[in-house]
């Protein structure tokens, strides 16, 4: 079971790149372009395209190459261009994001930066002298949750679910489609549409532009964009009364507290966390605690092998039972 991207490169990504690099990217053949998961730029080094767990360089004609001498190289000014364009020449508007090392742009693409951190009182104030940029491409794959959905529904309602995987395996893509399914309803699965509250701290799920989602989240989704998860979950419960609450990448102690409050309030919570497996997640502080307390009914474990979006297993957490496990040699579907 897997979902694969089959959409072309978002033209909005190319506007982030300096003209010379954008021109090379435009000349990449469509079948390669649709497989790109990341574009990596490092000062003084070749531009790399990542395809899940593998990568390749590009020559001036937009062809993949192994030869570093032929490859298109990036300069410091190219990285500054990307930073300036991604931050809309307004560092103050992305203070918190820059502190965390990335900015999310229109389309939900995440632009990560590495360089010299400016630290004040043990807190990263900003990043200067940027040396590396990673453009992680977000893709809207409608229907990608279709095969997972039957495992997450009981008695016509969604179960509390956590999606687990290392970065780049498709957590956000799956979460986005689950929001759409929950909000629109799915007659095939006998799931009625419900009010969905989405706390999109990193603006990746809804990819809001001016507060309006730029992806299809169905007709009943209320999005709190750029708001810290813990605060946002409580705000949405009080203000919008959602039946399903969705948020991304749990990790901080206050996130665990907010999830506990939401579940105790009778709201279905669908979320994600970084881990390789359920066992890994149980070992994590705070998040591991709420799993042990039985707050979640289902865990969906994703992998990037053989392709990003591969569903490795689906676990009924309370029963400790594996409902689905991908056979290593099994064929892909979905």
């Amino acid at each position: 079971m897997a979902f694969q991207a089959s959409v072309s490169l978002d033209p909005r990504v190319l506007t982030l790149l300096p003209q010379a690099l954008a021109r090379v990217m435009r000349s990449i053949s469509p079948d390669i372009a649709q497989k790109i998961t990341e574009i990596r730029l490092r000062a003084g080094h070749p531009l790399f395209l990542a395809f899940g767990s593998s990568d390749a360089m590009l020559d001036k004609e937009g062809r993949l190459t192994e030869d570093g001498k032929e490859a298109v190289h990036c300069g410091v000014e190219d990285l500054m261009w990307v930073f300036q364009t991604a931050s809309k020449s307004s560092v103050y508007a992305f203070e918190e994001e820059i502190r965390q090392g990335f900015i999310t742009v229109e389309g939900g693409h995440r632009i990560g930066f590495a360089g010299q951190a400016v630290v004040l009182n043990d807190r990263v104030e900003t990043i200067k002298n940027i040396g590396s940029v990673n453009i992680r491409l977000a893709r809207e794959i409608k229907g990608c949750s279709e095969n997972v959905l039957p495992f997450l529904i009981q008695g016509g309602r969604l179960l509390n679910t956590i999606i687990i995987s290392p970065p780049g395996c498709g957590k956000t893509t799956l979460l986005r489609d689950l929001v759409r399914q929950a909000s629109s309803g799915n007659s095939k699965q006998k799931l009625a549409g419900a009010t969905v509250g989405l706390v999109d701290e990193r603006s990746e799920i809804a990819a809001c532009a001016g507060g309006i989602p730029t992806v299809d989240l169905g007709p009943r989704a209320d999005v709190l964009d750029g708001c810290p998860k813990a605060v946002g979950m409580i705000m949405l419960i009080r203000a919008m009364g959602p039946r399903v609450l969705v948020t991304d990448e749990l990790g901080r102690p206050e996130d665990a507290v907010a999830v506990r409050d939401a579940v105790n309030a009778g709201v279905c919570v669908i979320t994600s966390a970084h881990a390789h497996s359920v066992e890994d997640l149980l070992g994590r502080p705070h998040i591991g605690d709420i799993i042990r307390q039985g707050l979640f009914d289902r865990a969906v474990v994703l992998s990037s092998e053989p392709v990003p979006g591969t569903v490795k297993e689906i676990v009924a957490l309370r029963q400790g039972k594996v409902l689905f496990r991908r056979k290593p040699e099994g064929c892909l579907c979905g």
Partner: protein
Amino acid sequence: MWVKLAGSILVIAASTAIGFRLAAEFEERPRQIRHLQGMLTGLKAFINFSARPLPEALRQIASGRKGPVAEMFLRTGELLGRSGENTEQALAAARMGLAKQLALARPEAEVLEQLFAVLGKTNRREQEKCLDLAINQLQEIEQEAAAEREKHTKVCRYLGVCGGLAIVIVLI
């Protein structure tokens, strides 16, 4: 006789118009500086309160307002929204396009250039400091410009009328 009279009236009218035109320019400068201070105060609110990115903030401040200063902010915001333009380049291009309408002299133009050199490059706290400094500097410049206006507008008007009369007397 009638021709001379008509000619004299024309000369006096033209000279007076030139005098009043020069006086209007002296009046326009403090008005535009005041307008500029208002726009920067608005920008401060957009940056501090809603953390709106510059292209959007500049466009929103200018919307619904008239005059060359508002137009300059609007154009700067639009240029900045395009890929690759930085704040200084966008401001310079907007000013160049409005050179005839803008009555800003060197002192206020320098304040504006210094501000736009740091605008968008630091956090909110620092942006606020820079905007406050620019607004204070503009207040001082406005006072000087207002004093100049008082001094020069009357002189220009008198010179216009009197200059016309002097030409007529010399020619007759």
